[in-house]
């Protein structure tokens, strides 16, 4: 036995979703970056950015869930941020912050409401609150040039959830 589900229940339009989709993931994206990045010690620095095509307009919330390998944390401090179209949210916790010449990692979990549909530019970086030059980590996505054993990459999951 089977049931029939009409198209207008199971499909999503570009700007709205049927009421039955509230709380559901309506679109997803994966961003992978395996390029080694030497960070800047400037008070504010962008590490990398990418674009995500948001589908659901302001009626969806964007969740960003990421793990970012790092190296040589050097015991400095500057808050990590996720910037979307010029607005920063400070997020992220870092393992092994004293790892001079050692492995570290950054974990990100953040959500955004009120973003319009279309191409959204998402940037990851650091920014100190008092404008002093600093950097929490020297290398993002370390590779064999840092340690012959290394092969790393950043993975960022993006979920768009209907409100």
């Amino acid at each position: 036995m089977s049931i029939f589900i009409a198209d207008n229940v199971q499909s999503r339009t570009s700007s709205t979703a049927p009421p039955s989709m509230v709380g559901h993931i309506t679109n997803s994206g994966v961003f992978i970056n395996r390029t080694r990045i030497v960070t800047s010690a400037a008070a504010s620095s962008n590490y990398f950015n990418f674009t995500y095509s948001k589908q659901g307009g302001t009626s969806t919330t964007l969740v960003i869930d990421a793990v970012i390998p790092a190296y040589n944390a050097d015991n400095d401090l500057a808050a990590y941020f996720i910037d979307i179209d010029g607005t920063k949210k400070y997020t992220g916790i870092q393992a092994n912050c004293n790892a001079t010449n050692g492995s570290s990692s950054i974990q990100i979990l953040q959500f955004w409401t009120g973003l319009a549909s279309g191409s959204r530019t998402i940037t990851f970086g650091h920014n100190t609150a008092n404008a002093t030059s600093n950097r929490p980590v020297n290398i993002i996505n370390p590779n064999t040039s840092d340690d012959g054993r290394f092969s790393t990459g950043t993975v960022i999951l993006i979920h768009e959830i209907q409100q």
Partner: protein
Amino acid sequence: MSTRISVDTITQASNTGLGPIIPGQVLYTTFRENATRSTLSASTNGTVGTTTFNKMYGASDSYIIIKGIVPGANNNNTGSFFKAYVDGETSFASTYGLMDIEASQVHSNGLAIHQAYYGMGTGLHTYTYGWETRDGTSNVPFNVVNPNSSDDARNQQTGTVFIIYEVGINNPNSI
């Protein structure tokens, strides 16, 4: 064009206005954020924070995934003595899925949470996250929650974030 889906894998939710219960899919999501700095005191056990969420489907229809990060700072007693539970310690207790991220400095350290809870009915539930030492010694996982520039002038105001997913299940007995 249309698609036929077997009733073995999809059932209609009893709650009016909600979508069908599709096994493996996220059925509902709750977002929680708190960016207020607070301090903790050493004890054999304590609460770092609480939050609430509404479960929309029944115990046999869905389970809960809780993902979170809790920034913390300023303690040398890093250790895996976190605990968390839903609706009181005897209801859906779990000490697993909680990872201490070296809160020994003023950096953006803290607690990473990745948990699952089963058998929970519909309605409002309270999630509590804190610590308890196994040997009864007085301790604290970190002294400051959501550290900011008062801990170190370079620090921005950090915040705790929870994303709570409700996911459909087909056969709860298989879990």
